[in-house]
């Protein structure tokens, strides 16, 4: 289907969507279906890969090529797809369990290698599909079916994990904050290399309200810090608060006015020093607003491209493989 004429509807598959009514996944689906037609990519060149989980049902609802694989392993499958055909735009839809529990190793290696694949991590801080066990992003003390007396392990910070693994594009958005999510998805699509997108997603059945301060229209402006490249770190409903350094490596929240102006604030730089991005990742409620948008967007060698380049180079140097020469090469002898 020619890329120019695509619309959102073209990306809706004929499968009935089977998430619970009210699930945040619907909103994400809608945003993705809105963004895809705007990317100038023919529909047949999209591949959506997933593991297992509620989030991982995503490919079924996208009228693209799709692969619902096995739990945690989408990054592996996606790597193979992308290396095999670099023209494809490869997206992963994954959950916090799928990506950070069983699939943790694959995801960090994907980011290390910088495979040109976009990762949408639907973080609902719970195992949805298996009906409500805590996940590696659940807060400590979480009571769930598997932790009736509260969980005792500290959660991962997905942004920290991504940065620690060398991710070249790290971002965060919110399921129902469509305008923002679309912006982030579009930026991810344009990044060359692995793009990591953490999406706060509400599981209204097993972990309802987990992200309330960031989802509710009335609350979110006071609780989210919008990262915009080149702009100071300002937040609040009336843009009256900001972030500045109180000492090396230590951010603080300040009220603007009364002696503090925007020029005192940190200015966001998606190519800034790594410890800066890492500092942003540590900003957590209630002490801080939660940064959303693109934390980091830098260039680095891209695995799939480099792999193909190497094949091309070797082929240019040695000439296209000659099977006869290969088999018959080396020491041979004739028996008559």
């Amino acid at each position, binding site marked *: 289907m020619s890329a120019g004429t695509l619309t959102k509807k073209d990306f809706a598959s004929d499968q009935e969507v089977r998430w619970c009514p009210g699930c945040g996944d619907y909103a994400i689906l809608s945003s993705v279906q809105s963004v895809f037609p705007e990317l100038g990519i023919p529909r047949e060149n999209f591949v959506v890969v997933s593991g297992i989980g509620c989030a991982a049902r995503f490919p079924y609802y996208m009228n693209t090529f*799709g692969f619902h694989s096995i739990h945690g392993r989408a990054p*592996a499958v996606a*790597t193979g797809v992308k290396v*095999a055909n670099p023209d494809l735009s490869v997206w992963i839809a994954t959950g916090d369990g799928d990506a950070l529990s069983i699939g943790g190793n694959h995801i960090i*290696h994907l980011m290390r290698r910088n495979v040109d694949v976009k990762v949408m991590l639907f973080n609902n801080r719970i195992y949805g599909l298996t009906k409500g066990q805590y996940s590696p992003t659940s807060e400590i003390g979480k009571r769930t079916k598997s932790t009736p007396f509260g969980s005792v392990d500290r959660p991962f910070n997905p942004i920290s994990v991504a940065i620690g693994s060398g991710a070249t594009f790290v971002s965060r958005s919110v399921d129902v904050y469509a305008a923002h999510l679309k912006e982030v998805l579009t930026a991810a699509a344009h990044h060359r290399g692995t793009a990591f997108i953490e999406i706060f997603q509400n599981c209204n059945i097993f972990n309802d309200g987990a992200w309330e301060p960031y989802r509710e229209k009335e609350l979110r402006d006071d609780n989210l810090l919008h990262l915009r490249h080149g702009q100071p770190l300002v937040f609040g409903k009336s843009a009256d608060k900001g972030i500045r350094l109180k000492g090396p490596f230590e951010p603080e929240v300040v009220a603007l006015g009364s002696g503090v102006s925007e020029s005192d604030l940190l200015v966001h730089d998606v190519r800034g020093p790594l410890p800066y991005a890492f500092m942003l990742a540590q900003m957590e409620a209630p002490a801080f607003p939660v940064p959303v948008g693109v934390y980091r967007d830098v260039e680095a060698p891209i695995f799939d491209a480099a792999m193909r380049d190497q094949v091309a180079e070797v082929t240019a140097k040695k000439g296209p493989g000659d099977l006869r020469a290969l088999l018959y090469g080396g020491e041979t002898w004739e028996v008559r």
Partner: protein
Amino acid sequence: MDTLASAPKAKEPVETLSRVVIRFAGDSGDGMQLTGTQFTATAAAVGNDLATFPDYPAEIRAPAGTLPGVSGFQINFSSEDIFTPGDAPDVLVAMNPAALRANIKDLRPGGILVVNTDAFRETDLAKAGYAKNPLEDGSLSGFRLYQVEITRLTRAALKETGLPQRIQDRCKNFFALGMMYYLYHRSMDVSVRWIQHKFAKKPELVQANTLALKGGYAYCEAAEIFPVTYEVPPAHLLPGLYRNISGNQALALGLVAAAQKSGLPLFLGSYPITPASDILHELSQYKNFGVYTFQAEDEIAAIGAALGASFAGSIGLTTTSGPGMALKMEFIGLAIMVELPLVIVDIQRGGPSTGLPTKTEQADLLQAIFGRPSEAPCIVIAARSASDCFEAAYEAVRLSITHMTPVILLSDGSIANGAEPWRLPKIEELAPVDARFRTEREGFLPYARDPRTLARSWAVPGTPGLEHRIGGIEKSDGTGAISYEPANHEHMVRLRAEKVARVAQDIPPSQVDGDPDGLLVVGWGSTYGAITGAVRRARAEGLRVAHLHLRHLSPLPADVGPILARYGRILVPEMNMGQLAMILRARFLRETTSLNKIQGQPFKESEILEGIRASASGGGR
């Protein structure tokens, strides 16, 4: 080869032998693998049939001089057909006491034993755990012992080079090689040329190694240490062009050949593991053949990426050994469900668990056939010799693409590392490997099937109008839409089974080697050589016996039942506890006798001959 005509004549009386087994043994730092390979190359050039068996230590570099550090290389070369690297060596070259101690029990009574006496100092003996010097205590009196100061003589031969002694001493393997060349009337040309090529950039090493080689040869000539020397004439091999090849090399070439024939890229996802790593190493050199090699973070990612590549239209391939195989099963199940081609190569090693990683075994058969949750039928085939790995790999790719389902190819440590002459196939005669790609959007159904094979067509991302979703949940046939319908599930389970079963309709009639009735020896995989040799010897003894060797283990060829029915007794030698035997018994309800060897070592011909004799004479298990 003309250079061979120039092989000088020895002065000693010359005996002609039809086959000889030499084992070179020394410390892993002594270069025994190289020595063996060189002797092999020359034997090949002479036109002998041959088979080899390298035996590495498990450690990278075990402490010098100790038993765990012993490295061995055995070659069987002959003027007749050869099927195995040989049972008991006729000649043992032992470069140190540990090598002697580890190998002497195998040397045939009266065999030739060459030792480097310079390595038999008291500390050397202690390291090998010898309380007394075996060269002096009479314990070797049953052999023809040649005590040679190999180290000293090598140094003497290399004096003029002025190289440091450490470097000089590294050449002593070539000295030993020179001796063997003399003993068996071999020309040194092949090795001299190899040295020149190998060390082209280090002329001092060309000189040193050549001097050592010639020194060993000259020493035998001058000192007349061997009372008799031997000739092993060329074998009557099938005419053709030959090269010497190890199983893993042949396997890699077979994969490349099939990929080339299909016109598709080959994508290998692999995680290193002994003894499969060499396939990864080989294939990573063939990038200009459209071969993509991906060293993944683990075995799961390796197969996952391969399956992803298959989805996108490449030939997905993964290579591993037992422990890694266990990790791939979940993905193989998925591949079976999504009906994509995928080749899984398992180079079996000694187990269970970490087991004996550098040793051989063929005990992953049941895992390959049954080792997945639920009913997940898979094509399973096996290679039977080093050179056969080429054909087996080729067949694996062909079957996987033709039938759009994963294929497990079993090989094992002994043939993976062992080498033998390979009669090169004619490129034009290689079977076609044709993928059925779908491009037509009209009437497209992802799970529409070829009526004969039941294979679905390959609809790869990037093809306009064929957008569709695949996955591991049960689906309706045709559309591929998720279905939890009870009857549909049974239909699909049976359909997937039938699809694999139908592979049998294209398997050519089985070859049975030997008598039309009596005892049938049924084997699979690397026991081929030993069984073939043993059956021939048994028949020469007058026993009524035949040999059926299975390439296809799942599904079995359609004629196995009728063949078994012709024979009164069935003997199944396996390097496991009876895995094929179980399959045959369950399927055909025939009594079988198992001959099991689970020692990390291949069968000897004589062991199988023994089994045949016992079975043929009605002996039980």
